[in-house]
């Protein structure tokens, strides 16, 4: 079944630890995105990718990094987690060319709620 998966769903970790949030999709989409959803529930785009070996920074500056080695996989890494990184992280994907869905239509994963102590 076509879907977007994020693991872990919840993560509590201490300051200074390196973490990787996983995102994978079986939607057959080329474009993928990472958003940070703050406590006020605003969505901020932090990274996006048009395809393999393509990564771009989003509108909100983030200390995280991303990679896109495989089309279906778009992990996000924090080298040294800090309490300010505590947030909900949402992964999304969309088609590169319009077809059944507009290429603006994004599909979201369930999110990872990160707490850094």
């Amino acid at each position, binding site marked *: 079944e076509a879907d977007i998966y994020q693991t872990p769903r919840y993560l509590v970790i201490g300051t200074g630890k390196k973490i990787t949030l996983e995102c994978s999709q079986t939607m057959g989409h080329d474009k993928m995105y990472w958003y940070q959803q703050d406590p006020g529930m*605003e*969505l901020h*785009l932090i990274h996006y990718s048009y395809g393999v070996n393509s990564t771009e920074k989003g509108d909100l500056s983030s200390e995280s990094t991303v990679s896109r080695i495989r089309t279906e996989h778009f992990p996000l890494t924090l080298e040294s987690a800090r309490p300010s990184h505590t947030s909900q992280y949402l992964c999304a994907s969309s088609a590169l060319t319009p077809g059944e869905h*507009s*290429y*603006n*239509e*994004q599909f*979201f994963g*369930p999110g990872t709620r990160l707490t850094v102590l």
Partner: protein
Amino acid sequence: AQRVTQPEKLLSVFKGAPVELKCNYSYSGSPELFWYVQYSRQRLQLLLRHISRESIKGFTADLNKGETSFHLKKPFAQEEDSAMYYCALGSPYGNKLVFGAGTILRVKS
């Protein structure tokens, strides 16, 4: 620059009352507008898009280019409509979506 404004952070209505969630956008070209919804403990999901002119769960939204608005409406609110609603704007090139700050809709019994 593309911008989406949702002026209300919280909208509280009684069950059966009409609902209007406001969305205004700023974009010089031909926009593509969406409404996304996030129910409690569920993922963000598409509610409707202006190009399909459809009604989903009783909600409709009309793109008004003159007023640069895309307000979401429902004639009779139900308790299960309580959720966070985001208006989003896409460009014809489809690079990314710009989201509004969101409006929490609370439907009281």
